[in-house]
């Protein structure tokens, strides 16, 4: 049976490959960074199994790895910039000539392949939909071929693999180009690739150490709880602010809803819990639009699109976010009670 573990192994191979390519170019920090990121993908299952069985050193070593990531990220996980010496300038000039040649080759290739270039890109969603729809029927002697619990993510893995093969055929590239081009994009994203993971990690540490309860306490202590509008605004803005700090509405939701939503709004003022949950979560999403902590949405595109200002994307989003926060608060005040 195809499981998520297989997808993780495949992805781990990409990160290890990126580490090796960087190692060969003596970019030590970047190589070390990707090697550590590969560990949870390649050895994640044994680490979790050992932790469950009471053997803690593998998990502790991974924890030390997380700290090492922080150090390596500050050393220039994005390829490291040193003061350019004469050799570096010469290399840069050679690279510029190379780049012009590559640009010309790309233009020529684009003219030759034309619409065929879209086929592998569009194959990703097409294969995903096919796998999502077809998974229940894919069985071998009664056993499912695809782990039913993880179909969407396995579908993504299958689609990415098949589309890569298609892309290599269509463009007549060498298979190694899958790795070198994947590595090029990974290096351009750099540390922002792991920030979402680290924020999720921080979220569980915050939960375990009672940060959420402390915040809910503080907020509960300063708002006039007999005003349902005050409670509603505190809940909505609390979702926005805590989401902005954590970079993720999923981390803010249990904290704010257990601290304010349930006791004050649902139990205190009889709010509809289904509408409160849904609209509260989406108000948190507005916070995601506002924060650099939501790296995969707001920082990764800055790097991928080669933007100069690290807040460009957030600048484009904040008016939409503010208008939506106001809309959600108004809708909640009308439908909740």
């Amino acid at each position, binding site marked *: 049976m195809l499981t998520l573990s297989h997808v*993780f192994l495949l*992805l781990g191979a990409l990160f290890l490959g990126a580490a090796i390519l960087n190692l060969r170019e003596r970019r030590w920090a970047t190589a070390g960074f990707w090697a550590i990121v590969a560990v949870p993908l390649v050895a*994640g299952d044994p680490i*979790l199994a050992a*932790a469950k069985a009471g053997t803690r050193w593998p998990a502790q070593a*991974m*924890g030390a*790895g997380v700290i090492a990531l*922080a150090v390596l990220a*500050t050393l220039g996980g994005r390829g490291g910039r040193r003061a350019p010496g004469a050799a570096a300038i010469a290399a840069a000039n050679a690279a510029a000539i190379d780049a012009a040649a590559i640009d010309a080759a790309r233009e020529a290739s*684009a003219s030759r392949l034309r619409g065929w270039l879209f086929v*592998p*890109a569009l194959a990703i*969603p097409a294969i*995903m*939909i096919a796998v999502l729809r077809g998974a229940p029927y894919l069985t071998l002697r009664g056993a499912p071929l695809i782990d039913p619990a993880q179909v969407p993510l396995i579908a*993504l893995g299958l689609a990415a693999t098949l*589309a*890569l093969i298609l*892309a290599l055929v*269509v463009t007549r*590239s060498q298979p190694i*180009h899958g790795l070198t*081009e994947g590595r090029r*994009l990974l290096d*351009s994203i750099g540390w*922002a*690739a792991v920030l979402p*993971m*680290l924020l*999720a*990690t*921080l979220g*569980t*540490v*915050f939960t*375990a*150490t009672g*940060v959420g*309860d*402390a*915040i809910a306490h*503080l907020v509960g202590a300063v708002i006039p709880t007999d005003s349902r509008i005050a409670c509603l605004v505190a809940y909505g803005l609390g979702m926005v602010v805590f989401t902005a*700090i954590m970079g993720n509405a999923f981390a803010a939701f*249990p904290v704010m809803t257990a601290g304010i939503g349930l006791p004050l709004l649902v139990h205190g003022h009889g709010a509809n819990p*289904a509408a409160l*949950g*849904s609209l509260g*979560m*989406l108000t948190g999403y507005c916070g*995601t639009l506002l924060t650099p*902590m939501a790296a995969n949405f707001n920082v990764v*595109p*800055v790097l991928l*699109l080669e933007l100069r200002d690290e807040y*460009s994307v957030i600048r484009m989003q904040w008016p939409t976010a503010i*208008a*939506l926060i106001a*809309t*959600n608060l108004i809708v909640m005040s009308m439908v909740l009670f």
Partner: protein
Amino acid sequence: MTAHVTGYAPLLGVAVVVVGFALKRNPVLIVVLAGLVSGVAAGLSPGDLLARLGTAFVESRTLLLFALTLPVIGVLERAGLREHARRWIAGFARLTLARLLIGYLALRQVLSMFGLIHIAGHPQTVRPLLAPMSEATASRALGPLDDDARERVRALAAATDNVGVFFGEDVFLAFGAVLLIQRFYDGQGLHLEPTQIAIWALPTAIAAFVIHSARIVVFQARLRRRLAARGAEPSASSAASPPPHEPPGTGA
């Protein structure tokens, strides 16, 4: 592990996040430091803290899956995907920047309403397709873009993808967020059906579409005015030079 350690001391971790950002330190460093500070403030032993960091890091590895599509996109880009996307879209004479982005917004919202969240995104659609197409339509209709205009058009394309995926999610199919909400309420002894929760995402989905579409239209109007004002200046001769679709940077 006790869930409720006493007092406000662990809040120091939140303070680290806020101060770290104010000082513009590397976010990875800030986040790891915040976790360590919170753990120490709550009285976790170093061994416990390391084990907890390690386990939580492994458990959140699904967040790396976005990187799966990078090799395909990279190979296609090397063969000229972005260049072709730009030329192809320029062939649609009546397509404007606003129509392109609003169309993409609608498509992204509808797809993610049905749970198809990962089929688009910054690596797989915005960088290779939407951003170059946006630049090409904008420059065809409004004249060549300067660096500033190009940057803003690209950023708007990325922002549009975010708004589309966030506020389409969870309307019809019970996916990530709806299940999280349901599980949370379950744990509190309140039993709700996923569809009951999901339907309340509809008002926000509609509002997000209307608000962001209006902003796209305003953006286009402003861009037109700004580029027209620039074109009216004496240096207009350079604005009339032929190649409107210059390649963006070297992709390095």
